[in-house]
């Protein structure tokens, strides 16, 4: 697995798109920090971007890599290696290289800015951790879609739809149902609904640090426990890990029966 990982990673790290992605974050980091000079605002803007963009890029990279390397994967499949190792290697290769682009792209400007002395270091690291999680989750999800869809165009379409659903539509439905069922107790429902969408989950994790003053305005014991103690942080992190583990697990399940 490590061998496959190594070469997928090499391949991707040399791809033009990795550079573009890296440079995008680098530029973003510099612009936000040096033209704005307000770390709080920079972290908020970054959060908005990371939460939408990393899932999109993870999805696209995952699907593209799967379909583009289909023939090479067949060559690998004919080698004396376990199937799941090949795909785990590729999966990790993509996820790690994307995460590296993110961490280096944003890390360099922040380090140059003198982040280590700033109080925002914790918020910023959380942002990177969440971004990394989103990479791993969405590459896994898109690999699942690609593995289940033979047709490249269809697979690509489904993947983008999935992203659109989780990034925008889900929250729309969520918000509308909150407004419609206004008169019922909604605290458990809203926390649960958050858990079922990795983008919302990541957003909540960052909100826990960034907007805790607002979140503590909630009444209701469930909210108080969730936001007022470390409980919320632990649960969210745990569910985020599940969001990586479950798609990876399904990937392996699918692989056992898959024909190439």
């Amino acid at each position: 697995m490590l061998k496959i990982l190594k070469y997928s990673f090499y391949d991707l790290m040399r791809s033009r798109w990795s550079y573009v992605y890296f440079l995008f974050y680098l530029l973003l980091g510099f612009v936000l920090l040096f033209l704005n000079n307000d770390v709080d605002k920079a972290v908020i803007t970054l959060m908005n971007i990371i939460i939408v963009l990393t899932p999109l890029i993870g999805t696209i990279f995952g699907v593209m890599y799967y379909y583009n390397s289909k023939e090479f994967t067949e060559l690998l499949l004919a080698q004396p290696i376990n199937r799941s190792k090949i795909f785990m290697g590729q999966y990790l290769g993509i996820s790690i290289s994307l995460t590296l682009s993110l961490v280096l792209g944003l890390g360099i400007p922040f380090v140059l800015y003198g982040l280590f002395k700033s109080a925002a270091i914790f918020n910023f690291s959380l942002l990177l951790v969440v971004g990394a999680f989103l990479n791993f989750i969405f590459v896994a999800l898109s690999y699942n879609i690609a593995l289940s869809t033979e047709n490249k165009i269809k697979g690509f379409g489904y993947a983008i739809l999935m992203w659109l659903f989780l990034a925008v539509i889900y929250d729309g439905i969520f918000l509308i149902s909150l407004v419609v069922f206004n008169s019922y107790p909604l605290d458990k429902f809203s926390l649960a609904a958050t858990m079922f969408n990795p983008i919302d989950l990541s957003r909540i994790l960052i909100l826990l640090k960034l907007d805790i003053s607002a979140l503590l305005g909630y009444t209701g014991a469930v909210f108080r426990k969730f936001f007022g103690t470390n409980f919320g942080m632990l649960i969210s992190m745990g569910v985020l890990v599940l969001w990586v583990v479950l798609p990876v697990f399904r990937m392996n399940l699918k692989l056992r029966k898959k024909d190439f």
Partner: protein
Amino acid sequence: MIEFKNLHKRFGKLVVLDGLDLEINKGGIFAILGPNGSGKTTLIKCLLGMVIPNKGDIFFEKKSVLRQWAYRNNLNYLPQIANFPPNLTVLELINMVKNLRPKTANEQELIELFGLKSFLDKKLGNLSGGTKQKVNIVLAFMFDSDLIVLDEPTNGLDPIALIHLKEIIQKEKDKGKTILITTHIMSFVDEVADEIVFLLDGKIYFKGTVDALKKQTNNDNLEHAIANLIAKQYA
């Protein structure tokens, strides 16, 4: 050496292999032929473990290959389409594949033979289709294995490379290797194959030597003999 037993494979409603039985003995060149969609590639992929049969079993050197992977160490495969990670160099690719198998490889000889020396540091994404196919051939032949599976090996090769390919195949055969080839180029089959396996509708329709086929169809030209075979089926 290889034995397919009552092999069934369906893709959705489409039946591709329908209770296929086939035995291939060690040594010699076997051409697997058949019209488009007759299940040639599926058959090979079943052997390679890429396609999982619905029913039946496959034995390689007396052991079932289903859900196994270690047996592939004694098997070389040349895929139909040569498409590699575009940002790796030729050398890196060769090293990677070598890395994946616990065998020694004799890639130098093949690189020389196909004139790939000057391409070693080039990225695979920048190579022409023919050069990629040459790399593909190097990868397939650089290990010393008892079985060699070639899926459309002549794709995009220039005449010189084609001659080299035939030489290599011959050489391997002389070493006592078993070689499975699928192809549409009948002249190539005529030239290299010892035996022909003809697939039709997911079953073995004919298995025997080239001469036996010619004799059976009363046709000296292999191409016509094959056409005759198909025509008879649909008549």
